[in-house]
């Protein structure tokens, strides 16, 4: 598909010439040359999900059902960062209209199988990724070899008839294969993720507090602090005492004066800050010296005393029946969670294993390294205890000690505070009765984009009854609008909120019919980006996927996530 560059010559300012011509810096084996090249190609994304995220991606196999522009855009965004392989299932052949809005259907190949053509063009994007295709309709394949679908890491599907969609979802659910339904319909974009359970170790929160344990200080840390007398330090050492030590020392004094309480209120914290800043050395003329470490100490008063509690999401994980009752078929996540729970209950006395990292601070390297060693040693110590629980659990379950790698254990302990488990409702449940979230969102806000979820459900009902989408034929547009309205009415009635029909404006019904099921490329491109991002989250187990549905309103550039 890509350009045959007959008339293009390399540009003169070739900044990257070395890699092509010269020897590499070191004598690398062929394999490591390939590795180095991969590292270069993926450099910008490794910085987001790391080598291990990349490895998960490279081991992933993804299935796309039905070649739509949204579907191929999604696959494109998964192939570029380097999934292992993909398979496209579609029994249809290319029409002129398909090729018009899909970059991966060659207009010169009208009449050929969509699955084959799209697979070939997509594969060209990245030689590291293997592509396959099945030129058979999904419904036949589901009938003939259902096990075909259960081996994938993720199954992505465009719009399917309700019968087929429900069948597919019911097949994947017990096999724990995530299903990502993803489509664009006029200016509406819709993604639905169905996964029984998805555990996230690295949720990458963007507001994580440091784990400093000033409320439950490490024994060696206390000793170290006690060995330092701020008053007797010379000028240089005084201004290079890590702020953590300063905070701790002033905290001891404060607690002595306040019945063992840490400064809690804004006013107390303000007083505490003032006390710290009063400790700054003064020169002969009584002018305070420039001591950055004291400024840092004062600055961190607000965050450093956040009590070390187990967050509610984590509490729920530790109390989950899967955590309490591990078996030899439990996933590593639950075996680790079980070890973590035992640690918290016993040695941790209510606290998590120490994270072990220290923030940057003004300090001489000697004392910083000493602090670092204290925190790291404690973290390693805590981790060892968790490790012992895990090994013990593994051997008593008869599943061997090698099951959980040290690396995984370490990552788990470091991220213990941020663990997440996502469980969406199944499609079966969704179509049986709406979630409370949907009802609340839809009935409490007449401007909510939840409206489009309702309309999409009505479109599905329309299709099931009429075998076509509303608004496909211009002359039936008005009739389709009123048909749609009655489907919405039925839906509202079945949800037990018949009055909510008032919230569905005629304009919105017009709009959804007017688009005539067309896929607008820019909406498809947008949705392809969002859906691929969700797939990457599901594949790497990093970052938290949307819990249920994602709705995009291209008319207003708004979006909504909804636990459907």
């Amino acid at each position, binding site marked *: 598909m890509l350009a045959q560059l007959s008339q293009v010559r390399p540009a003169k300012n070739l*900044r990257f010439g070395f890699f092509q011509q010269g020897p590499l*810096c070191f004598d690398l084996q062929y394999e490591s040359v390939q590795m180095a090249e991969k590292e270069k190609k993926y450099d910008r994304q490794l910085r987001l999900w790391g*080598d291990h995220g990349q490895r998960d991606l490279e081991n992933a196999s993804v299935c796309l059902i039905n070649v739509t522009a949204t579907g191929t855009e999604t696959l494109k965004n998964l192939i570029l960062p380097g999934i292992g392989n993909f398979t496209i299932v579609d029994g249809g052949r290319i029409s002129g209209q398909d090729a018009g809005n899909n970059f991966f259907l060659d207009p010169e190949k009208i009449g050929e199988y969509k699955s084959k053509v799209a697979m070939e063009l997509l594969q060209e994007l990245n030689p590291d990724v293997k592509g396959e295709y099945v030129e058979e309709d999904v419904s036949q394949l589901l009938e003939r070899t259902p096990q075909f679908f259960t081996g994938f890491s993720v199954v992505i599907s465009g719009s399917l008839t309700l019968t087929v969609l429900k069948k597919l979802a019911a097949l994947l659910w017990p096999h724990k294969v995530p299903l990502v339904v993803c489509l664009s319909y006029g200016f509406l974009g819709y993604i639905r993720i169905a996964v029984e359970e998805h555990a996230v170790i690295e949720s990458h929160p963007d507001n994580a507090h440091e784990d400093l344990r000033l409320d439950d200080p490490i024994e060696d840390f206390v000793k170290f602090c006690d060995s330092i007398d701020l008053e007797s330090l010379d000028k240089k050492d005084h201004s290079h005492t890590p702020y953590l030590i300063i905070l701790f020392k002033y905290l001891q004094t404060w607690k002595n004066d306040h019945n063992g309480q840490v400064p809690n209120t804004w006013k107390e914290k303000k007083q505490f800050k003032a006390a710290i800043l009063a400790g700054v050395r003064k020169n002969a003329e009584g002018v305070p010296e420039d001591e950055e470490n004291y400024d840092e100490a004062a600055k961190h008063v607000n965050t450093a005393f956040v009590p070390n509690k187990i967050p509610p999401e984590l509490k729920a994980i530790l109390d989950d029946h899967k955590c309490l009752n591990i078996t030899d078929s439990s996933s590593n996540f639950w075996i680790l969670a079980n070890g973590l729970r035992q640690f918290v209950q016993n040695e941790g006395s209510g606290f998590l294993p120490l994270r072990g990292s220290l923030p940057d601070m003004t300090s001489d*390297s000697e004392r910083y390294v000493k602090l670092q060693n204290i925190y790291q040693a404690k973290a390693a110590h805590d981790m060892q205890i968790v490790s012992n629980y895990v090994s013990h659990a593994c051997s008593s379950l008869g599943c061997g000690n090698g099951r959980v790698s040290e690396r995984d254990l370490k990552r788990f302990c470091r991220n213990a505070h941020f663990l997440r488990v996502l469980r969406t409702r199944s499609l079966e449940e969704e179509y049986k009765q709406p979630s409370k979230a949907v009802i609340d969102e839809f009935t409490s806000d007449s401007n909510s984009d939840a409206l489009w979820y309702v309309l999409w459900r009505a479109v599905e009902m329309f299709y099931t009854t009429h075998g076509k989408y509303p608004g496909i034929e211009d002359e039936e547009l008005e009739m389709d609008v009123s048909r749609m309205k009655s489907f919405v009415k039925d839906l509202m009635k079945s949800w037990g909120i018949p009055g909510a029909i008032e919230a569905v404006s005629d304009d919105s019904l017009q709009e959804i019919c007017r688009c005539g099921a*067309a896929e*607008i490329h820019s909406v498809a491109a*947008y949705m392809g980006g969002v859906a691929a991002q969700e797939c990457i989250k599901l594949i790497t187990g990093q970052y938290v996927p949307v819990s249920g549905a994602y709705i995009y309103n291209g008319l207003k550039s708004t979006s909504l996530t909804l636990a459907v």
Partner: protein
Amino acid sequence: MANLCMLPEMKKSVSDSKVFVVGAGGIGCELLKNLVLSGFRNIKVIDLDTIDVSNLNRQFLFQKRHVGFSKATVAKESVLCLCPTANITAIHDSIFNPEYNMQYFKQFDLVMNALDNRSARNHVNRMCLAANVPLIESGSAGYLGQVTAIKRGVTECYECRPAPRQKSFPGCTIRNTPSEPIHCIVWAKYLFNQLFGEEDADQDVSPDTADPEANESGDNSKVKHQHAQVDAERKSTREWAKENEYNPSKIFNKLFAHDIRYLLSMDKLWTKRKPPTPVDWSEVESNSQTSVSEKDIQSVLSLEENAMLFSESIQNLKQKLENEDEDGILVWDKDDTPALNFAASAANIRAHIFGIETKSIFDVKSMAGNIIPAIATTNAIVAGLIVMQALCILNKQFDKCKSVFVRKCVNPAKKLLVPCCLDPPKPDCYVCAEKPEITIAVNIETFTVAELKDQFLKKHLGMLAPDVEILDGKGTILISSDEEDSGSFDFDRPLADFNIINGSRLRADDFLQNYDIIINLTHETKFENEEIFKVLEQTGVAQQQKSADVSATQDNTTVNNTNNDDDDDICILEENVASPEKKRKLQQSPNHDDHNSKAKRRKVSESQNDSSVLIID
């Protein structure tokens, strides 16, 4: 079928429109595809850059065999393969080229930026203001993205909000008293240029004898004098290295033993600091033969390993330099292995000497290259949003345009996208206001014409080729962009030599950008940290508002960009520290508004290294 997008008149306005895509990188590739598949037929795309391996994880119109070719050209060819009916012109050139003047911009109905750096964004902003063509500005950084529309007299321009200053380090911190890893990394990059690259007097790496801290007398003229003398005595580092045939052990000893001992002799520096420990080559010369390359680039190397890497990379770079012409130079590139290894090892050895934490090669790469992570998905999202805005603009519905932010994760109001109303132009914007004036303080006795031109007019105001006239009633020309004339000006003379006094007014004009501004000068002698000018005030008259549809709401987030080397698609969503009291107004239903205003705004430092990069959600 009666799709909105396919209404005949809409379809025609799209296919008849002429659009200009500036940049064919991560967003540019996606955008070109989207435009063509949305029915755009007349597209010009410009990009100066060539394709690099690290582009291939997202710039899907390029493949490995295209590495080294022009991005614009390959992008065009790749799109045409599948959409042969489109009329695409690819331009492999710099957008700063005067050929692309106001007249050139006027041919377009719409300009779309898919750029990676602030100076080009500034320039296109001015060209679009001058030509009165709507502009869609966009950017992405990791999972974050932003799209916004700009129209003269209707919305804020790209420069209505002050740019955050790139964090810079005082020269003496870099040369004499580093205290953080980044100081050593900056030093190592300077060193690379001194040894192999383009020499720059501002990038000296040897001990700075003029450090005010080392000379507490504080007599400025004396310091300057001393400085000049030392400079004259010292051969350029490049000459010295050449004479010594780039012998690694000699270079090592000069930098890490001799220069450090010299620094130690400046004892005033070390009264409050921990003094550095010099390292001799003989101490670190490794007995082991294991190659450093077997180490993971993510691991932290020992001093000995760094020394070995230093030596190996010097030999490699020397080889490369010899392959160049007589006056050839190497350009530091974070994606070039020997260059990166050189900088990483030199920075780490220096860090070791000063008792600073050492970093892995991977981390050094981030810090040195100011790398902003970039992925296919965010670019796809952003490019999709651009086209939605483009359709609004061509459909004459500018009032429906928004500034849309793409977040990393769902916010408390369950949104991944945050659309905001566009703000009206800022009356005191020094770019888009009518009759803009700016008041700056400089030391008229020492501030030279060259500094006015390079540091203030070009670097601060973003002019390309300024002309400056003194408003003294005689129309004295201070700076002329006309090269033939420029010989007659003594650029090294201070402003005072041209009868400029406290309160003098200048008119600076950039012909290409069709942009002029009055500069009021105030005399001032005290400056902090190597600053040579201070902006005191900006005034002007807001452009006439042409549309009442754009609500007058405030928004204190803006598109911004760090000044990085050559990366794609960087754009940072940034809090405007100048107006923290203003709250962003969300374009949402009332109850969501309520919800959002309560949501706390957080600042997060994006890359672990660069604290000047702030993300706001």
